């Protein structure tokens, strides 16, 4: 029997979920150290910030009190797990054709009418994927997360790090400077948090029991939803 989700997909999904939660919660603690965002290379005066970030309450930070030192420990440790597991998942998904088979959109999917129909079906909470494993909106959102947002977290994180920046200065310059990279790191984290909340809501609305069973045990290939 063919599994609906490959083992590599399932392992990475849950490991990545853990990484994102730990990185977000430790990141919010780090943000509390200087909750202002700037554009360009330099920035240290709150009056020149483009955004004043709210101070995050302790129940949503790791550790559960303000500690920049310990929050950074969690962040730099899970940065490795996050980046290496994403790399391993990408290599496995090229090899087992998960990307080619399930995530690549076809030209015929990029037409206005079917896309509108797909959006309208989602709004009416009907989630049938016609033949393919994922519908167009799923392919698009998973594709943006896997190929844009997650790599952007790693690249902006490297551009913030003075050691990596000395080695790969082109990266920080391409992102508009260290403080711009820090701003993009923050915005991308917010986008990923938004995706995760939407993702969880849609799982809850589309048969959470079956979805969870499939992402843990693998499920059956011919299973819908």
């Amino acid at each position, binding site marked *: 029997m063919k599994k609906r989700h490959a083992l590599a997909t399932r392992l990475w999904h849950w490991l990545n979920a853990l990484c994102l939660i730990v990185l977000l919660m430790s990141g919010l603690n780090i943000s509390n150290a200087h909750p202002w965002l700037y554009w360009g290379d330099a920035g240290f005066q709150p009056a020149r910030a483009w955004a004043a970030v709210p101070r995050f309450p302790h129940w949503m930070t*790791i550790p559960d009190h303000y500690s920049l030192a310990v929050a950074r420990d969690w962040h*730099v440790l899970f940065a490795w797990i996050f980046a290496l597991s994403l790399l391993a998942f990408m290599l496995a998904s090229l090899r087992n054709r998960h990307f080619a088979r399930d995530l690549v959109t076809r030209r015929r999917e990029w037409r206005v009418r079917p896309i509108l129909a797909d959006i309208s079906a989602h709004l009416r909470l009907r989630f049938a994927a016609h033949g393919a494993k994922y519908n167009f909106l799923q392919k698009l959102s998973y594709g943006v997360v896997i190929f844009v947002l997650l790599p952007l977290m790693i690249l902006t994180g490297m551009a913030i790090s003075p050691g990596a920046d*000395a080695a790969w200065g082109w990266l920080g310059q391409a992102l508009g400077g260290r403080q711009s990279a820090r701003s993009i790191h923050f915005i991308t984290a917010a986008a990923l948090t938004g995706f995760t909340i939407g993702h969880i809501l849609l799982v809850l609305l589309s048969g959470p029991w079956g979805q969870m069973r499939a992402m843990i045990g693998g499920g059956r290939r011919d299973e819908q939803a």
Partner: protein
Amino acid sequence: MNRRNLLASLLGTMAAGCTRIGETAPFAWAVDQAEGLHRIAHRAIGGPRPLAREYPPSAISADFRGNGSTDVPTPAYRAHQAAGFANWRLSVGGLVERPLSLTMADIRGLPQRTQITRHDCVEGWSAIAQWTGPQLGPILDRAGLLPDARFIVFRCADLLYGAPYYESCDLADAFHPQTIIAHRLNGGDLPVKNGAPLRLRLERQLGYKHAKYLTGIQAVASLEGFGDGNGGFWEDRGYQWYAGI
């Protein structure tokens, strides 16, 4: 229980659990491994000696911020300040063949390097400034490092929260061309709030490594015996020794 409370209690449980895990020895071990791996990766991807980016004069930040210690309120320092730091000395000792005691004139007489670099604080902010001073490498060569020397420890005049500030780096960073003993900032003498009369510039690492109010440089085989043995004032308070990230 409403949904908001449910979310708060789920995340709160996660936060509290991670706080407990964060206090265990295996977690500290894993963090040390991650820190070392970052250092190795940074040095691997950049080749043997990548330079931190240097900026044009137009990029210099107005009013370079003073952070951490911004003064040394002792009678001895006040006397140096009144004398324009003419009698300040920098000792170079430890595992060296020829201990040195450099005057400010000695330091100004060495070949100088001027660099406009970005200072990145661990808190997240950055400021750009021009620094001038002799490279540390040739000073260490003049003193002659003994084969056992593995780290350079920087002693400072300032106390922060009542404890002496100090820092350290490995020999790769000590001999990096941008590692200088700065005595000038943006073309003027180093201001008191920025570490007068001498401070370390250890580009490629975070601000807390750039020790201010330097009094001595010591070559050592081990970081034990200084502070709590973690290699620096902030390192003794839980921060990472390799501050390249």
